[in-house]
């Protein structure tokens, strides 16, 4: 494992990508054999792909048109009734709203803090491994571990947070029990947990910026801040677009830490759309209805993906 990476750079520096070249020999001999080989190599993946991705997508769509229940009862085909019910379901809209709210207030710090940390660490600090270790290691924890840690720190009487506030003379906060604070408490835990991932991506991107840019700039007398805003930031543009999009898509799927810390409470104030899907199916036993909400959620994700394609096209055009 440790010796292997040496092969990669040689290939990159060869300059020409093989795939960019016409490959006449291979092209002209598209044979029956190639067809067989190609599909044979693809077959194992395809089997899983069809069974555990394509088929559930289809059966979910079908299910969403039925009154299927977890108890086995099935009221049969009911057309779009589940969808019309969902669109009139204020709990569904509230969960969707909570999800969008979480996405907004988590994406901003998860991107900005990651960038700031990466920029600071990239200033040639000593002990690079130490910073990576500190900021990235929480990412390796299961959501349950993170939730246990933070629920304990948010404990009203015995928690670190309120203890800290008390030392500053600030009255205690009901972190997970106050509807106006709970989502922020979840965001704090989430930032601690996952910001290290974006931090690593930014750090890698920063280190890919050619040194010459900075050398030229400092010859021209540009200072550190200037260099950051006029070189680093623009060079990080594509990375930032990608990180933001990935982060939005990841935040929209939020479930674990909310379910574990507040179960969606207090009073549904933190319930996410994935939790609503989960509950409609497994506590409400309404698989058909749950499948319909799944598809509404999928529709939202598709819209955002389309927006992404639109934005990146525009940028590269």
């Amino acid at each position: 494992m440790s010796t292997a990476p040496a092969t990669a750079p040689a290939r990159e520096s060869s300059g020409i990508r093989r795939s960019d070249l016409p490959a006449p020999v291979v092209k002209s001999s598209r044979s029956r054999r190639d067809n067989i080989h190609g599909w044979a190599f693809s077959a194992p993946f395809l089997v899983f792909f069809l069974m555990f991705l394509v088929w559930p997508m289809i059966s979910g769509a079908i299910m969403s048109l039925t009154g299927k229940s977890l108890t086995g009862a099935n009221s049969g085909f009911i057309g779009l009734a589940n969808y019309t019910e969902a669109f009139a379901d204020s709990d569904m809209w509230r969960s969707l709203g909570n999800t969008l709210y979480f996405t907004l207030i988590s994406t901003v710090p998860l991107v900005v803090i990651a960038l700031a940390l990466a920029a600071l660490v990239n200033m040639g600090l000593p002990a690079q491994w130490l910073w990576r270790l500190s900021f990235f290691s929480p990412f390796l924890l299961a959501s349950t571990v993170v939730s246990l840690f933070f629920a304990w720190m948010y404990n009203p009487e015995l928690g670190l947070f309120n203890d800290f506030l008390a030392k500053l003379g600030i009255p205690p906060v009901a972190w997970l029990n106050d509807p106006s604070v709970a989502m922020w408490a979840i965001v704090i835990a989430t930032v601690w947990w996952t910001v290290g991932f974006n931090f690593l991506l930014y750090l890698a991107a920063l280190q890919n910026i050619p040194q010459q840019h900075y050398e030229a700039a400092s010859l021209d007398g540009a200072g550190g801040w200037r260099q950051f805003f006029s070189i680093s930031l623009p060079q990080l543009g594509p990375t930032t677009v990608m990180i933001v999009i990935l982060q939005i898509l990841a935040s929209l799927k939020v479930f674990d830490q909310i379910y574990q810390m507040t179960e969606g409470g207090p009073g549904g104030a933190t319930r996410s759309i994935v939790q609503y899907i989960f509950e409609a199916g497994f506590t409400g036993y309404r698989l058909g209805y749950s499948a319909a909400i799944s598809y509404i959620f999928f529709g939202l994700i598709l819209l955002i993906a389309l927006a992404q394609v639109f934005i990146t096209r525009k940028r590269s055009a």
Partner: protein
Amino acid sequence: MATTTLSKPALQPEGSAESLPNRRPKTPLSRALATVVVSVLAVAWLVPFAWATVTALKSETDAASTPISWIPASGFTFDAFAKVLQSGNIPTWTLNSLFTSAAITAITLVISASVAYAISRIDFRGKRMLMGVIVASIIIPPPVLIIPLFQQMQSLNLIDTYWALILPQVIHSPMVFVLKKFFDQIPRELEEAALMDGAGRLRIFTTIVLPLSRPILAAVAIFVFIGAWNNFLWPFIATNESSLLTLPVGLQTIKSAYGIQYAQNMASALLAALPLIVVFLFFQRQIIRGVATTGLAGT
């Protein structure tokens, strides 16, 4: 999709991605300031670990007494760890997590690498469509599938089996894309020579392509393993029986079982966190490079 926008760093040369100090001249003052700021933040980042550790080393009485303190009145004790290890299922859950994550990683690597190789190298009918479908599938969020997958597993009678945990978790379309891009960069000459010598496709794939691809295979394996190890939602749905739970799911049941036993809660959480943290300490470079390599793959 915007697949080409960020194709640059397939894999970075060993040195450049880390440890190489930035040669950019910086005033000592600004660097010292940055070091202070980053140090303070790094310490803050370690507080949850430290507080969990201190709590786990307290007696339950000390853990639940006010005012809270970093140094317990009756001294540190391993009682909570001992209790959790004696009465709990944590060793079983750890093995379950290890087994299912390893199986998921192995299957994912085999099926993804072979389809990626086919798409990269073999000129077969329908491969463009195949690649298109795989890339398009990246957009499907796993939570959308839980209801139909549960139904499917139920009708196959696989709920509460390892199969239910493993099978639905082996499709990682972004990883197919990452692997294909890497294979594209391997010079074809190597394979053409072997083809001339009459070597079969499978032989070329296993003896030439795969050995050359070790860094990317390691990166993909790391990414998939971490994801599988920590996955919560699907295992939470697919298993109920305590002896089959994975660590993250088992931990969730502990929370409700132990209730207000804070020291034991933290001891359990730390025991659950330990395996990956230890692995990380040993393979820090590989893991960080792996994440940096595959992290943006989904786009």
